């Protein structure tokens, strides 16, 4: 698992960490039962505040993505699963199709990227994203 938050992006660091852990699970880099690094060494390695890492882990536990076992550390929950390879392939096809259609309508790549990112981040003006 490779975590690498970008502190100056303006996106809360704990949310970035949560997204990156979830991404690792979806791609299969992390599997159910795998152990995550402990809070202290991870904070030291990433040079981010330990309280921020602790918050990311608490929220991931709250969402059922990881399990915190007292004294033993953090583990990927057994209920999680990677997205199957064929589903990933299908998803890429959907994205490619959507991009094609948008380009045909004269929408620039930069504009498409902004729209996708805004939609994902919940920055669509319909409500503040709360992770």
């Amino acid at each position, binding site marked *: 698992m490779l975590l690498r938050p970008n502190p100056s992006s303006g996106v809360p*660091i704990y949310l970035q960490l949560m997204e990156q852990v979830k991404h690792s699970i979806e791609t299969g880099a992390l599997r159910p039962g795998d152990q995550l690094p402990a809070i202290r060494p991870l904070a030291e390695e990433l*040079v981010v505040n330990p309280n921020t890492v602790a918050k990311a882990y608490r929220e991931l536990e709250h969402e059922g993505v990881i399990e915190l076992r007292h004294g033993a550390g953090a583990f990927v929950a057994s209920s999680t699963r990677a997205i199957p390879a064929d589903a990933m392939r299908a998803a890429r096809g959907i994205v490619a199709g959507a991009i094609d259609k948008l380009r045909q309508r004269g929408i620039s790549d930069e504009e498409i990227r902004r729209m996708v990112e805004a939609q994902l981040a919940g920055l669509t003006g319909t409500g503040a994203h709360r992770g």
Partner: protein
Amino acid sequence: MADPLVIECAGLSKHYGSTRALDGLDLQVPRGSIFGFLGRNGAGKTTTIKILLGMVHPTGGRVHVFDLPAAEREASVAIRRRCGFVSEEKDLYNGMTVGEIVAFTASFYPRWRADLQERYLRSFELSADANVKTLSRGTRTKLALLLAFCRGAELLILDEPTSGLDPAVAEEVLQLLVSHVAREETTIFLSSHHLAEIDQIADRIGIVHRGRMILSGVLDDLRQDFRRVQAVFDGDAPGAGFATPGVVRVRRKGRTVDVTAHGHVDDVVAEARALGAVAVDVSAVPLKEMFLELVAMED
């Protein structure tokens, strides 16, 4: 966030003649945090630090460190015993060797951490025989931090700890601060002009401007609550509106209105739509922009 407060100031003021260095400053620093204290030169940062350390007497208001009144002489001595302070100049005795300054400093502190001393001397590759005045700026900084860490201080007050350091050494210093907070029961109160460093390691910030705290809180919460809303109109942008709560700054240019808001973003978006905006974009606001917007707004 029920962590007890290590530093608590309310309505703190310091006047020098007719100059108000501090003008009703409020400050809360919970235990275990890395608090980034931000402000322009002359905003009141150094005065605040001097008051916390009992080096300057406030004109008015309340200042408590470890629940002790820092403005009172006896309490202030007790506070300083539990605090480590590293000034921007990294004042060290130039005539001594590294070994001598470590032994000299250790003799004042019964809770001296010999284990940390050994660990840091080794990891900084500091030779006990080296004369302090021959050390590079980066090594001086690390030595000053070592002296503060080994005292077993519950609160470290660091004034511009990375100023004048090359980026690689500055990163090492940040790493050191994070790992110290992760391993020991310490709170770090850190003033800096390097917003990128604060962005990276602080979990809380306070922005002081003209002697007042104009923004403070958990940094990730602020990242979540600050938004830039850009509204594009078909004709000229409306000249009025966007005076709702939370709006920090409004810029109008041609067909667009740029609104920076702290919370209440939905209201701003709704207003833009009600005024007939054809496109409304919402984006994140990095710390650097929060700082510049707020400090500029107050000018």
